[in-house]
């Protein structure tokens, strides 16, 4: 495993009290694989990734848990040294994070010389190499960011992330803002890169279709916790957590015959005061009394093949059948109030 997250807790201090954005998340990234970190807004996926990189906002801090990279535990101080070199990060607004007053080539060269200690000529050669890697023409090195289209800017941001030959790439919603054809091209490019450079990747997204297309493994987060993880094929075809089952129903599938999209009623809990027990319990159609008092967290740092944080995990097969029936979700008490 190139990256292991064990019981990570990240708290933000706000005027309203501490917001427990990530509360005991555990998962692992096998070397050379692409892991999709998926969940809705507020589930903590972006916070988790930023914590790994040590780029949390000022009022955020790690309140517990471990992050282990290549066998070594890292904290905010050590991560800064690793930034760009071993672990690279493509943030959510990467497209607009390119400085508009410098050419893209100049920005690439700066990363290579300042952080990579390369000479200017070596840096320029490497910049051309990187552009080629991400499918951009070398002549565009002299262009300014505003002359690039959205897809091209994203490619440039990825090129910058790969400049110093990292072994792990963390990408936060890299294709969300792009048109579907460009999105597909970027995803294909990421897959090619991963194969050529033997990269490990963590892809943060809210779109399980993107995860299905690109990722080998998937980690599903909800309200600051990891509630299911495993190989993509397994988790999508045979989900074991009710939230994943509901998500599957709520996601449109272009090719399926179903003409119903079934919403999950209710809304995610307030993370400054989360409910005791399972955080999905208020919205879960299969809730039991025990669910509101004790939660089931994924243990062992997520090393099991297909793990699910549900007390009724052993009934997953029959729950899955019931989850496919829209009536199950409609009967859930908080239906229609999202």
């Amino acid at each position, binding site marked *: 495993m190139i990256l292991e997250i064990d019981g990570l807790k990240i708290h933000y201090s706000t005027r309203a009290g501490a917001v427990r954005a990530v509360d005991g998340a555990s998962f692992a990234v096998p070397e050379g694989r692409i892991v999709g970190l998926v969940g809705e807004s507020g589930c903590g996926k972006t916070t988790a990734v930023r914590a790994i990189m040590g780029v949390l906002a000022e009022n955020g801090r790690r309140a517990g848990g471990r992050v282990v990279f290549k066998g070594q535990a890292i904290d905010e101080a050590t991560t800064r040294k690793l930034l760009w070199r071993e672990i690279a990060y493509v943030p959510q607004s990467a497209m607009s994070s390119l400085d508009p007053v410098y050419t893209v080539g100049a920005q690439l060269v700066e990363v290579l010389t300042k952080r990579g200690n390369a000479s200017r000529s070596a840096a320029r050669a490497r910049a051309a190499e990187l552009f080629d890697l991400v499918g951009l023409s070398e002549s565009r090195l002299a262009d300014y960011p505003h002359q690039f289209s959205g897809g091209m800017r994203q490619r440039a941001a990825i090129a910058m992330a790969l400049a110093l030959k990292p072994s792990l790439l963390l990408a936060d919603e890299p294709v969300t803002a792009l048109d579907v054809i*460009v999105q597909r091209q970027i995803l294909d490019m990421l897959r090619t890169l991963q194969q050529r450079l033997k990269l490990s990747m963590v892809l943060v997204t809210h779109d399980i279709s993107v995860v299905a297309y690109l990722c080998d493994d998937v980690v599903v987060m909800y309200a600051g916790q990891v509630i299911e993880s495993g190989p993509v094929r397994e988790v999508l075809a045979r989900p074991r957590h009710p939230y994943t089952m509901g998500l599957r129903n709520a*996601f*449109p599938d*272009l090719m399926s015959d179903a*003409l119903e999209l079934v919403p999950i009623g209710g809304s995610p809990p307030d993370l400054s005061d989360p409910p005791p027990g399972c955080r999905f319990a208020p919205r879960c159609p299969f809730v039991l009394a025990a669910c509101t008092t004790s939660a089931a967290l994924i243990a062992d740092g997520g090393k099991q093949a297909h793990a699910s944080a549900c007390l009724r995990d052993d009934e997953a097969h029959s729950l899955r059948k019931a989850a496919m029936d829209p009536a199950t979700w409609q009967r859930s008490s908080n239906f229609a109030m999202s």
Partner: protein
Amino acid sequence: MAALVELRDVVKHFPVGRSLGEVVRGEHPAVRALDGVSFDVGPGDAVAIVGESGCGKTTLGRLMLKLVEPTAGSIAFDGTPLAGLAGADLRHFRRQAQLVFQNPFDALNPRFTIYRAVAEPLLNAGIDRAEHMDRVASAFRRVHLPDLDRYLDKYPHQLSGGQLQRVVLARALVLAPRFLVADEPVSMLDVSVRAGILALMREVRDTMGLSAVYISHDLALVRYLCERTLVMYLGCIVEDGPTDEIVRRPRHPYTQALVAAVPVPDADQSRAPLPISGNVPDAREPPSGCRFRDRCPRAMARCAAETPLLRPIGDGHRVACHLDLA
């Protein structure tokens, strides 16, 4: 049956600032957002307009609501041309055609309470204050926000995205319009919330007999709402037909690429290369003839010389292509 909304050869160009050279040469560069769009929306129809950014779909939506004026061509609502509508006639039109916005957080004035926001169309239309409460209450019931008192005094930042979008929809419905344009109404909402809003829009359409135009870049979503889909590329309609046909048997090469590019939640989906090359051309200088020809895998010589027109190839299905696609 007469169409509710009729568009004929609608053109919209946005002039751009000229460089000195262009001024000297007498050129007038413009972004050609729409170049000759014609279609009808019948009463009770649900039509989706899909395409990538820059195809002109948002501009088309704004034109249909007279928020923008066309450069050429005509748009008519219920037989009356929109051009030249003013005063009482314009207000009458505004009561019948409404818009649902993409970003629920921005579509409501942050200083207005929810009640005030939903009541505003009533104020604008000069409806008697005595009726306001009832109308607002019935609009709230339609969007399944029945506990009025929970929401009326709240401000937008106190509500969730899904609730806000319902409020936006309530505001659009409070005057009982006949025509609704929804511009990416769920793209800013979480996935688990989208399904609820889409189901609501479908229900509202059925119970109120609205005609609706649904603008989206997400082909996978429009299937759930619209029986008919228009596919646009760089300001032109390239295919117009039953949504099911468009998705299962796309005819136009662009539609085929678009459908192939949409990922599905299936780990075994096809990862074959897309039948399309290059990038979207500059909207100020689109290719001559068929605008898609420089990216089309099946382009012919004729495509550069002659712009293909929309021609019927089946039951309610039109394609703008020189290829034989029947």
